[in-house]
């Protein structure tokens, strides 16, 4: 494709969250498309869009960081080190790591079965995977309570125990790794696996030497998303976990009780930790999607 002079070509952009590891093919198509620098009308549009984005998102999130620094470093650390807050952070991060590890294993397995296996009812499973993301979080809590709460037909009662936190995180993060791994797995030809098998490779070797390396970036971005979602979870825990201090109270619940007690600086200090983790995850995803695009 030839270019007219004066047409500036921007590098293609991906959404770090949507595009990580999957849009490599799309990116290649993009080279050769043209775009222009701002005209007067589009400049005005950008101004209006940025103003709205700032009022809605940027200024409020900045306010959290400013409020957190209100009392200086020592007050900031002091509020994070209060035993109850520290216990909430430890529970949240610990369970989020545990859930992410389970998701790495189960998410990859589910994606593999959905792509490579064929059986009646597979389409239903496709819908089931997305239910946790579509369901309002308060309903998700009610849903889990029905099978794992006091009137459970299984005879277990995990409501108000740390297990309920694990379950809630597991439920709401179910789709992330499945949905990042699935498209990549679809692009790997089954012939490659068959070739490896015909050369005598065992199933384990095929998986670890042939499939896993190509899936690694997708699994990593799914894991980052799933960790991020777990540490910020709130709604599904309200009815399920009982929010007991030192036992089932997670970081979000702790922030809420600070807000209700009108301790905005302490709330902001803990919120800033969640905000920073969210920013780190977005940067990680951006880096992964850029690396994948480079090697594709």
């Amino acid at each position, binding site marked *: 494709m030839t270019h007219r002079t004066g047409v500036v070509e921007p590098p293609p952009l991906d959404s770090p969250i949507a595009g990580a590891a999957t849009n490599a093919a799309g990116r290649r198509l993009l080279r050769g498309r043209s775009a222009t620098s701002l005209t007067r009308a589009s400049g005005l549009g950008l101004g209006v869009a940025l103003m709205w984005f700032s009022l809605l998102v940027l200024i409020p999130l900045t306010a959290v960081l400013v409020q957190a620094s209100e009392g200086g470093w020592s007050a900031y650390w002091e509020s994070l080190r209060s035993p109850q807050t520290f216990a909430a952070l430890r529970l949240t991060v610990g369970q989020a790591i545990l859930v992410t590890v389970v998701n790495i294993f*189960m998410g990859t397995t589910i994606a593999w079965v959905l792509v490579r296996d064929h059986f009646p009812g597979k389409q239903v499973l496709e819908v089931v995977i997305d239910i946790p993301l579509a369901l*309002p*979080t308060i309903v998700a809590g009610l849903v889990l309570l029905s099978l794992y709460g006091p009137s459970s037909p299984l005879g277990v009662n995990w409501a108000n125990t740390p297990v309920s936190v694990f379950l809630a995180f597991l439920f709401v993060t179910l789709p992330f790794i499945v949905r990042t791994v699935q498209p990549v797995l679809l692009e790997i030809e089954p012939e490659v696996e068959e070739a490896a098998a015909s050369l005598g490779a065992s199933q384990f070797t095929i998986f670890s030497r042939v499939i896993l390396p190509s899936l690694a970036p997708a699994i990593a971005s799914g894991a980052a998303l799933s960790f991020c979602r777990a540490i910020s979870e709130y709604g599904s825990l309200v009815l399920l976990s009982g929010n007991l201090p030192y036992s089932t109270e997670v970081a979000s619940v702790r922030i809420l009780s600070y807000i209700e007690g009108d301790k905005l600086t302490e709330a902001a200090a803990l919120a800033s930790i969640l905000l920073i983790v969210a920013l780190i995850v977005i940067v990680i995803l951006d880096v992964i999607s850029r690396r994948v695009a480079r090697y594709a």
Partner: protein
Amino acid sequence: MRDTAGSQTATRWVLRVLVVGYLFLLVIWPVVLVAQETFAHGLAPVIDALRQAEVIFAFQLTLSAAFWAVVINTIFGVGISLLLVRYTFPGRRTLNALVDLPLAVSPIVVGLSLILVYSGRTGWLGGSLEQAGLQIIYAPPGIILATAFVSMPLVIREVMPVLQEIGTEQEQAARSLGASALQTFARITLPAIRWALLYGVVLSLARSLGEFGAVKIVSGGVAMRTQTATLLVEERYQQFGVENSIIAYTAAFILALIAVVALVVVSSFQPQKGRR
């Protein structure tokens, strides 16, 4: 050779049973139980619950807040997608990363951040807005802001890849034949992105109807004034009595039904998505 084929079939079955069992225990069975619980006393109590003034109010408030949030997100989403894909400007890459931030931030942090800026008592801007007669926190505008915040990236994420893929040849052709910018958008760009846009709108609507944490903080959750459907579920579930519990389950069931219908509608667009 037959041995490997046999062990492959065995592995396949083990994985299939593992996956189906896992999804059954984590999602399918619990969801079915909630539906059963809702109709445990028959249809009549459920219909009675839906006739209650507080339930009707909560759903009306939820629907109108979701409607405005989706309208805002659609206009903003299409605009910012066009700007990010079609133009170059300093900070473009940063803006592209930042528009995903609302999906990664905890709803509680969203609520806190809005309180810090828009609360009439202590907020950065809230005081002056309140003097101008506009109350945001503990009022419907706050609910709309919180809802728009959490569902903001959904339209953008769907529209941007399609805009990138269709390119600019047709738009440039239209412009060179004398069409105005508005005509080009309405006749060329909009038809090309319509499926992605619809997909984004449905996702955005489902997310808006179900928002809980952020809305809880900014709305105060006062019945008949600022209580949305999800807040009603929480309040009624925690109160004693069969009647309250039926109301909680009924509202939850309707929210779940909307979510699942939205999901099925969205996945029926999947073929269009695949073809693009």
